[in-house]
């Protein structure tokens, strides 16, 4: 452990590093500006490999100790958990990403949360007169054939995992079956749900908060969709994170840690809020426009580190026929 801490005061190690390889499950559009800025600051050239978080995870698992990657940036905690479970991440020294509260860091410090993503219900304000107070309301006849979910999506699965942890498997199962019985519509992606609400195909969808901006920007116009939160403390208000981990096979762990420090620094965190409409994880930070602050959402208290065990979630989703 002492050795690892030694690594992190990484000045002499970072000096002879000229380039760093990043596998990024976060899309180029949103993360590249940050990485470019760090490149100029550090003088270290970044080789960035963009891909889908889950596919990059499968790739890292296949590569094992031969992975060319130094740092993995993921869209979700689940991917980071899978790599952590395979023992391919280092345990990050305590002076890395000090600004990030412990609830957004894995217990063994294998990975660090970088930005927050709130689970919300996106809805069409003109069609939904009675807003749901809890996820349990979504199985009521009031919302029949009106709801959209993306069961293959990592963020939805993280939510179901939290639901199982919070309310038990029996409840989660009957809730999922209730949704199916209520004519829930299945989509492949969160953005497809938001578009479907805008088009009038459905009225409510379980998504992450920032898809409103993403879809609207892509269409080049405003859309008829709003973000809604459930009653404080409801499991539907889960906060998930995008995050980062340093590969154990990397020979440039110091430089990779420096990059994590940059991404979790106050200026970079503020830039995430304004540019990508994600939540900063730093205590008391501003929220993205028109949204409550992170500590005002009333997020359920869930150990994100435990969300990696999605095997049971998977089996459950398969059992009820959603996967």
């Amino acid at each position, binding site marked *: 452990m002492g050795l690892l801490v030694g690594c992190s005061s990484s000045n002499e190690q970072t000096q002879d590093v000229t380039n760093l*390889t990043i596998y990024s499950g976060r*899309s*180029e*559009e*949103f993360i590249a500006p940050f990485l470019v800025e760090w490149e100029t600051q550090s003088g270290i050239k970044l*080789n*960035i*490999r*963009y*891909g*889908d978080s*889950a*596919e990059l*995870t*499968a*790739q890292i*698992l*296949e*590569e*094992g100790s*031969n*992975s*060319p990657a130094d740092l993995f940036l993921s869209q979700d905690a*689940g*991917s980071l958990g*899978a790599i952590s479970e395979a023992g391919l991440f280092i345990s990050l020294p305590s002076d890395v990403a000090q600004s990030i509260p412990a609830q957004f860091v894995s217990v063994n410090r294998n990975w660090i949360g970088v930005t927050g993503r709130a689970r919300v219900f996106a809805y069409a304000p003109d069609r939904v007169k009675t807003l749901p107070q809890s996820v349990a309301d979504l199985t009521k006849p009031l919302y029949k054939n009106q709801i959209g979910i993306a*069961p*293959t999506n*990592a963020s939805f*699965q993280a939510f179901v995992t939290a639901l199982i942890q919070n309310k038990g498997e029996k409840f989660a199962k009957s809730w999922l079956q209730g949704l199916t019985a209520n004519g829930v519509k*299945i*989509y*492949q992606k969160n*953005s*497809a749900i938001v*578009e*479907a609400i805008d*088009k*009038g*195909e459905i009225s409510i969808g379980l998504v992450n908060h920032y898809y409103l901006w*993403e*879809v609207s*920007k*892509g*269409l*080049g*116009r405003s859309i008829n969709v709003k973000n809604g939160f459930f009653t404080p403390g409801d499991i539907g208000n889960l906060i998930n994170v995008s995050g980062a981990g340093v590969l154990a096979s990397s020979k440039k762990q110091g430089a990779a840690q420096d990059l994590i420090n940059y991404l979790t620094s106050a200026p970079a965190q503020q830039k995430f809020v304004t540019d990508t409409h994600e939540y900063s994880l730093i205590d008391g930070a501003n929220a993205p426009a028109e949204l409550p602050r992170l500590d005002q959402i009333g997020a359920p208290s869930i150990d994100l580190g435990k969300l990696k065990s*999605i*095997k049971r979630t*998977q089996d459950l*989703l*398969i059992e009820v*026929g959603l*996967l």
Partner: protein
Amino acid sequence: MNTRMQRALKLSLNSAVGMVAALSMIPLVYLFVRASDKPMGEIVQLLVRQKTLDVLTTTILMVVCVVAITLFFGVAIASGLHFVHLPLRRLLIIPTVLPLAIPSYVFTYTWIALVPSFSGFAAAVFILSLTTLPYIILVTLAGLRSVDGSQIEVARSLGLNYRQTFFRVVFPQIRGHASAGALLAGLYAMSDFGAVSLLNVETLTVSIQNMYRASYDRSAAAVISFVLIAFAVLFVIAEESIKTKSPDGQIVKTFSTKHALIRKRPLQVTVMFAVITFGVVAVVIPFYVLLTRFFSNPVGIDWRSLLTATISTITVAAIGAIIALVLSAPLGVLLSGKVTSFGRIAERTIVVGAALPGVVVGLALVSIGSKLGALYQTTLLLAFAYALLFLAKSVASMTSSLARVPNGVKEVAATFGMNQWSVVRKVIAPIAAPGIGLGTILVFLTAMKELPATLMLRPTGFETLATQIWSSTSINRFNEAAPFALILVLVAAIPSFYISRPDKADRAFI
């Protein structure tokens, strides 16, 4: 040539084929290793659960529908283009080939943008039929060009009408080609992920991808991959039983490929209508949607990255196509001689591999490639991945073209003292060349739009047109994807035009 040399030649040919077959088995071996991580009980449970059976049923139904639809329309359109006198006949082939250049997920996005409720089984069959129709049209056209025109003249002079002539004289000669096209279409439908997943149809490929995506469960994905492989094996066997019904030993193309073009007004109108409808549905509409998305929210075009991506795409796809050609050549030569069961097994192994989704082949090569040090994530390994992924296209075109060479001709040539190599070069190659060229270009066209394996195996930072389209569409920026999609189709149009030039194809026979 003495018998010892001949035996040495045969041995080296067989070992070359063995090596290619072994290479094509990399994904299978990988899947086997991954699947064996799972305890037998779990494997059985996974295989017999209701869900697996449902998904298998969906997959089978979808493949059957796509093959039936594309076979009917593909053979009809190809025959129309070949036999009917039409204005701008050569140019008319282009819109029927161009859909090959449009990735199925882009295709689907554009249709969803146009028809919001576009979803489900019928929609998936529709999209996959549009995407695969060009395979059947192209392969059938290649077959039609080697149909003996004088036989048609004879049939007509004996009083057969057009329909009778087609079914009695023409169709038996192109059946092998059409079924090769159907094979490619069916395997494509099995392995497609982009279209079916967007349309909420769960096929085996979608299940496999979901297992990686949602549970990082590589073993479960491997087990389901074997279900897909089993189906592909049955499909290939079914196709072979159709193909082998083709008459063998006819002397083809000894007289003329010239035939009088049909000038009947109703036929001309029907063919024109079919081609135009297909062109509108499969080319004009996707373009229209892409362009309107682009102009409704225009962005500055990054010419530099557009140019770089174009050059990268062409280069790596071309290298891949050449590798596929080289890899399929020994098998072609082997199967053009006396067909051995070894050659058949090698052929089937390669063809069955085409049913595997790109992500599986990609991960198999990641698993092996990452142990190769400097070779990992190079353009060469990526090109090799393309060759492996699309080898079946090149092999299918090669063997169906070689099947057109009558055994009689080979035997006659051999009695004149030509050795096997000279027979290949002077007799077989000229007859089979157009089909082989077609196979190579098909590999090139498909490789240009490949995505999952490209994302995993490309050199870090290396962008192709497909990866650029993906990075924009994955965050719903169709407007930004449009220029890359347009260039992809334009680049693909050139080889499409080249292979569809009738005069070129005819000359290759002389």
